[in-house]
């Protein structure tokens, strides 16, 4: 499997090369998004620390959010899918290899456009880009940001179409095409193809509005509500489409490290379909405080809360599979166990936010930031690490250092708890998100959260060191076939 370094720099249709291209690029963007997070954590570490002004802070949180979602998690999950999907399916070729390659070559210009927006100065309205603020904000930075999102959603569309085609082409492989990771990718890609076009249309309208002085698509009352609906119609299932591949990867890791097939595998697949379906119809929960028509609030609350049922079902299936097995505590297994625990915290705090009266109190507070970071870092990132460690020996032909991997897990889990649990408590005390002033009395929580961010940064550097060192000079791995993929 040793390849010329240059083969990773060229357009390719080889899924193994694409996997590496996506993962390396996305983690490079992760370092930038993480640097912005550390800047914000520094700003709110101690009272009196002044690293940046209000406008720079707004660009930091806006770019941090959009970099982490669109330039790190989405392409990293695409990379993991390129690495795992064909191996789990047991096929050698993607169905639409050129389209999959295009997905990567759209990521680069999209990413550079987004990064350039940070350096253009001016105020930035957050990753949700609510109107009318996002239309009024002057400066070319916000326009570049809108353009970058259009390119990145097209990249997502290429990836999703490619994965969907590969899965459908291999559907005659009855047992393998019903593996948890394959089903998760199938639903995740479907969600992307249903929801991304809606945001794409809204972004295009916003771009035209920003570029032209003439009649405006999103002017007046239409824009305010339409934008929120269009944004969250994509933004809410976006979490689901990241979460499902993580759930799929954790399921594969559990099978490989217990030597047993998942208990109730068929029902777990159905539960994932339910998670995807409910994720698609829960977007209104982000608009409870935004003058949403009262009659639709309760249905949105019920769909948002109900997603806990299939998720709990999947957790029970995992726990039972562990219960009946002798578990091997490899690095990917530790991350899978960590996923179950930390995603549990995200799910429980999410249940609070789904309840309308609780949401009206906590919406827009740092409780929401704490919840979303628990979901994305405790959840998706843990699943991503589980999947990367799991597939790494088969993908590169090299072994990583297990001890460093386990140390990475401890630092990661510690960092997630220390960084994001205090955010929940700070929000309960009545502190809105996206402010950089420390409320008197909460200094300790703010400092703990900033310390957690620092630990998380150290953990991620440890991971990158372990992976790159193993890739260059690791012991050769004997695995040709993904362990557990035939269960």
């Amino acid at each position, binding site marked *: 499997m040793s390849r010329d370094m240059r083969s990773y720099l060229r357009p390719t249709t080889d899924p193994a090369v694409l996997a590496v291209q996506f993962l390396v690029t996305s983690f490079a963007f992760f370092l930038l998004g993480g640097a912005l997070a550390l800047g914000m954590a520094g700003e709110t570490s101690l009272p009196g620390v002044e690293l940046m002004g*209000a*406008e720079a802070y*707004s660009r930091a949180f806006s770019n941090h959010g959009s970099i982490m979602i669109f330039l790190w998690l989405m392409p990293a999950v695409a990379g993991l899918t390129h690495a795992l999907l064909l191996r789990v399916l047991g096929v050698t070729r993607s169905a639409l290899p050129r389209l999959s390659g295009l997905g990567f070559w759209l990521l680069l210009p999209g990413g550079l456009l987004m990064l350039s927006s940070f350096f253009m100065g001016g*105020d930035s*309205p957050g990753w949700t880009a*609510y109107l*009318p*603020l996002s239309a*009024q*904000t002057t400066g070319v930075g916000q326009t570049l940001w809108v353009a970058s999102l259009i390119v990145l959603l097209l990249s997502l569309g290429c990836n999703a179409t490619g994965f969907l085609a590969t899965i459908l082409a291999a559907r005659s492989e009855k047992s393998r095409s019903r593996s948890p990771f394959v089903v998760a990718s199938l639903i995740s890609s479907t969600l992307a193809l249903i929801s991304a076009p809606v945001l794409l249309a809204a972004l295009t309208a916003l771009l035209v509005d920003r570029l032209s002085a003439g009649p405006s698509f999103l002017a*007046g*009352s239409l824009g*305010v*509500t339409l934008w929120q609906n269009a944004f969250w119609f994509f933004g809410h299932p976006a979490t689901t489409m990241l979460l499902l591949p993580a759930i799929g990867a954790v399921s594969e890791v559990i099978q490989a490290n*217990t030597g047993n097939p998942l*208990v*109730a595998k*068929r*029902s777990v697949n159905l539960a994932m379909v339910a998670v995807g379906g409910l994720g698609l119809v829960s977007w209104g929960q982000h608009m409870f*405080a*935004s*003058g949403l028509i009262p009659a639709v*609030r*309760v249905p949105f*609350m019920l769909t948002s*809360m*109900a997603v*806990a*049922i299939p998720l709990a*079902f999947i957790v029970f299936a995992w*726990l*039972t599979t*562990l*219960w*009946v097995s*002798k*578990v091997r505590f490899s690095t990917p297994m530790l991350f899978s*166990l960590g996923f*179950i*625990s930390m995603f*549990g915290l995200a799910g*429980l705090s999410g*249940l*609070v936010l789904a*309840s*309308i*009266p*609780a949401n*009206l*109190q906590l*919406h*827009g*507070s740092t409780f929401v930031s704490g919840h979303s970071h628990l979901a994305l870092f405790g959840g998706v990132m843990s699943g991503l690490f589980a999947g990367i460690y799991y597939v790494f020996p088969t993908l590169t032909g090299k072994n990583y250092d297990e001890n460093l991997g386990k140390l990475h897990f401890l630092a990661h889990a510690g960092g997630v708890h220390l960084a994001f649990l205090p955010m929940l408590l700070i929000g*309960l*005390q*009545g502190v*809105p*998100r*996206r402010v950089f*002033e420390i409320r008197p009395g909460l200094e300790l929580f703010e400092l703990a959260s900033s310390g957690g961010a620092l630990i998380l940064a150290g953990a991620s550097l440890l991971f990158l060191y372990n992976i790159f060192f193993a890739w260059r000079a690791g012991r050769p791995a004997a695995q040709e076939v993904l362990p557990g993929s035939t269960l």
Partner: protein
Amino acid sequence: MRERNILLVTILVLSLIGVGIAVASLVRPLPQPASDRAVLVDQLLRVFFGLATAVFLGVEGLLVFAAVRGRLFGSSAAISNPNPALELLWLAVPAAIVLVLSVYSIRVLLLMEAPRSDPLLVEIAASQYRWEFHYPESGVTTNELHLPAGRPAVLTFRSSDVIHSFWVPVFGGKVDALPDRVTSLALTPLRTGVYQAVCAEYCGADHAGMIAPVWVEDPAGFEQWLQSEAGD
């Protein structure tokens, strides 16, 4: 052996319920509830956090035990797969919890938004980066919100530029001020004191500074303030 296991599970479940109830009665989710809404939200959050603690500890315990069980006792615990009874239980337990929380949430929502008799009206105008409070009955317009304790108040909102969100955390709720529509928030202040209204929707560079003092006074003090403002 079997009896002993049933006893053990019963004790564990009961102690989880105990921990949940203890958390629900000890936590202070809202800093200092100062309105009827806040009291309701405070109770709701206590129930959520109590339940969440019990569920989290239960799952965490199961997770750790399930992970090490095979290594401690050997992997002899075979179960039939598929197992419809077990799967039904996995559905029923979370469904029951979700159902209870949903019904409770809807009940609290209805109580919070029930129409109030003889409310004090305050029209609030939001703009970058200030709140302006107008009392239509007396024609007073100020930069601080004053409310009499015990009398229902209906606050209506309108923004003249971008979206803002009016949040007095001790009042237990918030609502956006939108440029295209009037929104409202109904509440009855219960406790006198000086609180703070903040903006909870990012509205531009000075968003963090968009704050206003909120006074809840006894009715006589409120009338006095209103008259002195009207006299100016």
